[in-house]
């Protein structure tokens, strides 16, 4: 690498920046083949009606999208997804942060506790769903039993349309804890300890330290987690499939589940592809908004 001379430095920068493409190349190539190409193919599919086994297809322009726009079921799905994502993220992230704060100490045996909270992540969504199905059984499940002991009658968590959505939200938060905690921990561990010490010397209490130091220092992490939590909740599928299968009476038929059903159960490929694009656009808008809005408040060194 050349340096020192003015001209040399110019050449170096150019070479340097060009080398960036080398680093990007593998990711880019794989991405184009395995993500971009299928996504574009799907876009074409969304403008067609295709027979279940794919042998016939007719071009129908925007009919699928118009049908979605008119569909009462789809409006319902939009509403349900909104509620689901909102509560999952709004309750899930603070709870995870709280737990991470406790885990960020150097108590003895802290690694045991860290493993404990990681467990929901290690369990696949399907398994999580299965375990909870059993725990939530209205008759012989543990949860209703405990409620009965305190004197409450527990509802039919999964089959009562009023409780199905809260149940799914609860299980999803539980499931996402592991992921959120790992990331929060990594972020917390990066906060230099001397900052806290300096603040202590200045007489700050824990709460002040938290607000003035911790939060700003982990703001990149918070941004990251908010975005990913929203996206993950939007795409949350496995546990819903096992717990409620989108029901009862469409009470938990989030956008992704509706898409799955149309694509893989009803074989309405065109219609499902249109739904995929709607989800994509929604997520795109949300993420762009987040980057703009929260990006300003994020503190990098």
């Amino acid at each position, binding site marked *: 690498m050349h340096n020192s001379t003015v001209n040399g430095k110019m050449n170096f920068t150019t070479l340097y920046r060009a080398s960036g493409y080398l680093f990007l190349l593998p990711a880019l190539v794989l991405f184009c083949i395995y993500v971009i190409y*299928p996504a574009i193919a799907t876009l074409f599919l969304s403008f067609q009606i295709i027979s279940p086994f794919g042998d016939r297809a007719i071009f129908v322009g925007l009919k699928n999208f118009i049908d979605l726009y008119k569909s009462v079921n789809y409006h319902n799905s939009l509403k349900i997804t909104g509620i689901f994502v909102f509560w999952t993220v709004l309750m899930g992230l603070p709870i995870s942060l709280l737990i991470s704060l406790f885990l960020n100490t150097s108590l003895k045996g802290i690694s045991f506790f860290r493993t404990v909270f990681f*467990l929901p992540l290690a369990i696949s969504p399907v398994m*999580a769903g299965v375990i909870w199905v059993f725990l939530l059984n209205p008759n012989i499940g543990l949860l209703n039993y405990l409620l009965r002991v305190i004197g409450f009658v527990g509802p039919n968590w999964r089959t009562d349309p009023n409780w199905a959505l809260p149940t799914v939200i609860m299980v999803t938060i539980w499931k996402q804890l592991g992921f959120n905690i790992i990331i929060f921990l990594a972020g917390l561990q990066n906060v230099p300890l001397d900052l806290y010490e300096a603040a202590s010397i200045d007489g700050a209490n824990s709460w002040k330290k938290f607000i003035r130091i911790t939060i700003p220092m982990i703001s990149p992490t918070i941004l990251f987690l908010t975005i990913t939590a929203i996206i993950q909740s939007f795409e949350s599928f496995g546990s819903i499939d096992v717990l409620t299968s989108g029901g009862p009476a469409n009470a938990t038929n989030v956008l992704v589940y509706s898409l799955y059903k149309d694509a893989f159960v009803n074989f309405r490929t065109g219609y499902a592809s249109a739904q995929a694009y709607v989800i994509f656009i929604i997520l795109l808008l949300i993420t762009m908004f987040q980057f703009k809005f929260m990006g300003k408040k994020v503190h990098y060194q």
Partner: protein
Amino acid sequence: MRYSHIKKIRNFCNYIALFALSSTVLLPTLFMLFGSFKEQSEVTAYPPRLLPGSFTYLGNFSAAWKRAPFGLYLTNSLIVGIFTLLGVLLICICAAYAFSHIKPWGAKYIFMLFMSGMMIPPQVTVVPRYMLMQKMGLIDTHAAMIIPFLAYPMGIFLLYQFFRTVPKDLEEAARLDGCGPFRFLVSILIPLARPSIGALSILTFVNSWNRYMWPLIVTNTTKMRTAPIGIKMFLDETEGSHLGVMMAGAVIVIAPAILVFIIGQKQFVKALASGAVKG
């Protein structure tokens, strides 16, 4: 004297909080763990009991192991998991570095491209991806379960967020010392980023381990199937009639992922202990 008292009380409170929180989180998992040692009548007993009659009842495990080739499933999941992990680390570290430090022209747009990829619901790219795999002759191979996931936008994003926090002057100082971009990446940036890389490793491995829909679609034969498929098929079979066996199967399948975390977590902490203190 006073200070150590306060410290003790604080520690005590921390422990209490941790215990309380962890039991809520732990309960379902414990239930499954203990359930694998229960006989069928114990599982459906009312009032429900948490603890099994004895921890020596291994009938469920042997039944589960016999009913499905879990050894095979675990091996497949392991192969796919490890190679996915290595591939992801390689590719995402390089890409994140390019975005955070090198910043070639148009990087902003390429970055947005990657981020948009994160938002494409996986269910939908499945059919065209399958066709691609089939054209390449990769159906029913490990490669088919590894390659599509190597350009992991979430991974790039995560590392990018971290790499950005490394001050520019560090790199310039290194450059003045005659250190090229590649060496900088390898000898300085990566060690600094160990916590994030550790987190990414755990996530990648676990995600790969738990992946269900895609491996189901690209594998046709039992000998290629991975653990989640095995457990789901197992679930379909037992259908609630042999919950103990099913939970035993689930324990068999979850154990490796947890093991990886326990190991990875120690590294994680080690790296942090010796980690770079900035400022």
